């Protein structure tokens, strides 16, 4: 390989057919005399613009039906011509410099074109150079060179993460791996499980109980996740009514009065609430509005007047205090009820964190746009983060996450995308240049992920996500089942 051009932070390296280099690989443009090396990452592999190639291809493109023949080439010069034909130009982005064995971000120097040596830089060596610590190891999988890739769980602590990619590329699989990895280090995790994919994480792929059995607590709204009104905070209830059930402002004000009235009398039950709405002196339209919301809450099955049936998140967190996951199973829950449950869960989570009843929690939200109201996005990213809610968004529709969220994301786990629009959206992430995202993500095979952000010290790395011995339940149900 030879250094050919440098323009801005882009380098072009001439490579020959026997040198196997792929997108995502790291190269070191080393200048031995200066004892320096430029770390570059290959983001595209193109054919070298060899003169005369078009003529040659045109000449050789005739089909055997009309023109055929043979070459008498006793010196076997043709192999050299083919070699030149297959010469490639590697487009690379400069990521840093190695100066006397140490990594620096200084990329302002220009290596010698004639003297520099270009060689592959194994990802494992790069990560060692970048001093990616493994205090709390989270083994994600393997690099292209088949060396294990482990990040530090601290890289997710206090951070905002996004896992995205098109369908069936392995997003949910990775997020389960992250969940289990965090549990291993004693973290508390809350999963908003839209499709019931996490409910069997406590079982091995063969259906046997796994080491995570006691650490995965599945809470299904209406079944083992019910709350009494007395457990609720007025603010959370108002959020549910206003944001999930679209209660108008005037009606919300009346509701607040009713709630306080019942609270003062220690009569916060569904039955009493229904009675109070019926007998409350107010406009008939307001009463109607309150009744319609009341019946929605009643029919959701999420609320109960029986304290023995009720679940408290505080107790649930207690049960997994050594590390575990509360899976909020939103499968088969209607869209409105889903929003009610999520409003309650997040409100309660913030309440527990504010009161320091739990230290911090990692929140995994799959396809959050389906249950998270608009205003919550910023809330999660800014305010709730300070309380100790560290969110990981998992989605196959990157445009459902707003641009400012991408900009603030600390880590992005990017799977394959082929759609230009999706690539454009993801490329707005501030952690890396748009070209890298577009070029590498487009060609990622299934179960391969491009890691961007603090977890890899801003050196984008491609990883083949390791398999998990758990019941992932992420597969789509098929009509035409295979035997």
């Amino acid at each position: 390989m030879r250094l050919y051009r440098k323009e801005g932070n882009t380098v072009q390296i001439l490579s020959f057919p026997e040198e196997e280099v792929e997108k995502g690989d790291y190269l070191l443009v080393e200048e031995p005399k200066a004892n320096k090396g430029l770390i570059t990452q290959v983001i595209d592999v193109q054919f070298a613009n060899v003169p005369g190639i078009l003529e040659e291809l045109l000449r050789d493109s005739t089909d055997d039906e009309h023109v055929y023949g043979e070459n008498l080439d006793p010196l076997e010069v043709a192999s050299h011509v083919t070699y030149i034909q297959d010469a490639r130009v590697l487009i690379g982005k400069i990521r840093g410099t190695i100066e006397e064995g140490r990594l620096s971000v200084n990329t302002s120097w220009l290596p010698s074109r004639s003297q520099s040596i270009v060689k592959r830089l194994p990802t494992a060596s790069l990560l060692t150079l970048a001093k990616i610590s493994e205090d709390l190891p989270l083994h994600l999988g393997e690099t292209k060179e088949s060396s294990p890739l482990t990040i530090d769980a601290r890289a997710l602590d206090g951070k905002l993460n996004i896992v995205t990619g098109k369908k069936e590329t392995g997003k949910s699989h990775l997020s389960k791996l992250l969940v289990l990895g965090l549990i291993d280090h004693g973290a508390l995790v809350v999963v908003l499980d839209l499709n019931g994919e996490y409910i069997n994480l406590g079982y091995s792929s063969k259906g046997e109980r796994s080491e995570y059995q006691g650490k995965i607590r599945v809470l299904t709204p209406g079944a083992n996740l019910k709350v009494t009104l007395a457990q609720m905070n007025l603010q959370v209830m108002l959020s549910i009514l206003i944001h999930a059930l679209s209660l108008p402002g005037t009606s919300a004000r009346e509701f607040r009065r009713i709630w306080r009235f019942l609270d003062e009398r220690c009569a916060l039950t569904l039955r009493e609430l229904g009675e109070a709405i019926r007998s409350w002196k107010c406009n008939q339209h307001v009463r109607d509005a309150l009744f319609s919301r009341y019946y929605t809450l009643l029919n959701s099955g999420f609320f109960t007047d029986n304290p023995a049936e009720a679940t408290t998140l505080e107790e649930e967190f207690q049960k997994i205090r050594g590390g575990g996951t509360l899976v909020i199973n939103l499968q088969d829950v209607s869209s409105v009820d889903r929003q009610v449950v999520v409003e309650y869960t997040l409100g309660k989570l913030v309440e527990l964190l504010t009161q320091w009843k739990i230290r911090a929690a990692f929140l995994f939200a799959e396809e959050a746009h389906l249950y998270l109201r608009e205003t919550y996005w910023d809330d999660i990213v800014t305010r709730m983060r300070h309380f100790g809610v560290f969110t990981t968004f998992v989605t196959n529709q990157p445009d459902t996450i707003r641009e400012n969220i991408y900009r603030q994301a600390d880590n992005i786990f990017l799977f394959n995308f082929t759609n230009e629009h999706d690539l454009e959206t993801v490329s707005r992430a501030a952690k890396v240049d748009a070209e890298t995202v577009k070029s590498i993500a487009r060609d990622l095979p299934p179960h391969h992920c491009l890691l961007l952000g603090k977890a890899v010290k801003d050196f984008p790395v491609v990883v083949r996500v390791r398999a998990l011995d758990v019941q992932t339940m992420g597969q789509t149900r098929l009509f035409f089942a295979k035997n």
Partner: protein
Amino acid sequence: MPVFLPHNPHTPQSIPLKPLFNHTTIVAIDVSNIKLGETETGTLCAVRGAIVWKEKSRYKYLRLGPFPFHVTEENKREIYHLLKQYYLDTSKEANTPSLVHMQARISNLLERWIQTIICSSSQNTIILWDGSLTAGTVDSPINMMSQLLETARTRHNTVLAFSKMTRLRLLGHRLTDLVGKCPPPCILEIEGFHVPSGPVRFLGNIYVAKLTEGHCSFRLDIDRRVPRERGLEAIQRLLGNDLILQSYPETLRLAHIYSTFTANEVIGIQRFIAQQCGLKIVTRPNIRRILFGPFGKGPEG
């Protein structure tokens, strides 16, 4: 379009042609050479030949080469005489060309050798050459050329030589400009050429061929010893058996294409030489460029 008087002895005669479709194999030969660079002691060049056959509706080709040469003052005599001896089967010593002409001469030797092989191995075919049937020059001795054509004739082959460029003029006009108003396919028979004094001889009858509509016409030489009618019939059989585009036979066009070197091939051959022989190509400064800057056009050196 030049105008000729009715009784002018040089008046070209237009001969209309009709394609003859009786099956005939067409063979075309072309050779290319290219300079690859210079070394400290000489020059590097390569030659390649191509033979293309048109049989029924298919074209078949055979490419010979590329053959790279490193020609120096020391080895040029050996190379030239070895090739001459091998290709032309002659042990007669001749003057070795100068270094700058060696590339063209090696190429010419290869071309004559391929022509010899084809003329002596084909039968009842039309053989297309690139160039003319002019003999008596350094690279086309009269004896050798006459012998070549005779070999072709004895095997009932007809050699048609197409020249893309000609220096021949008739009454001051370029030959290929004379065919303006003739409806194609036709040829103009040019008679009354002044036979040049000195060693140069025309071994063919000279025509201007305009075989299709379009702007192109070519000088066409047909072996002088072939009866005129048989010569004309050969062109008509060419018309009936080959694809003709811009008055040029496709078989000969393919031969040219298959022998020509592309820039990529040049790099490949340079790499072969560097790897196999350890020869280093030196880039000589372009004196014209140095002296005249952007006005320094023309050959390097």
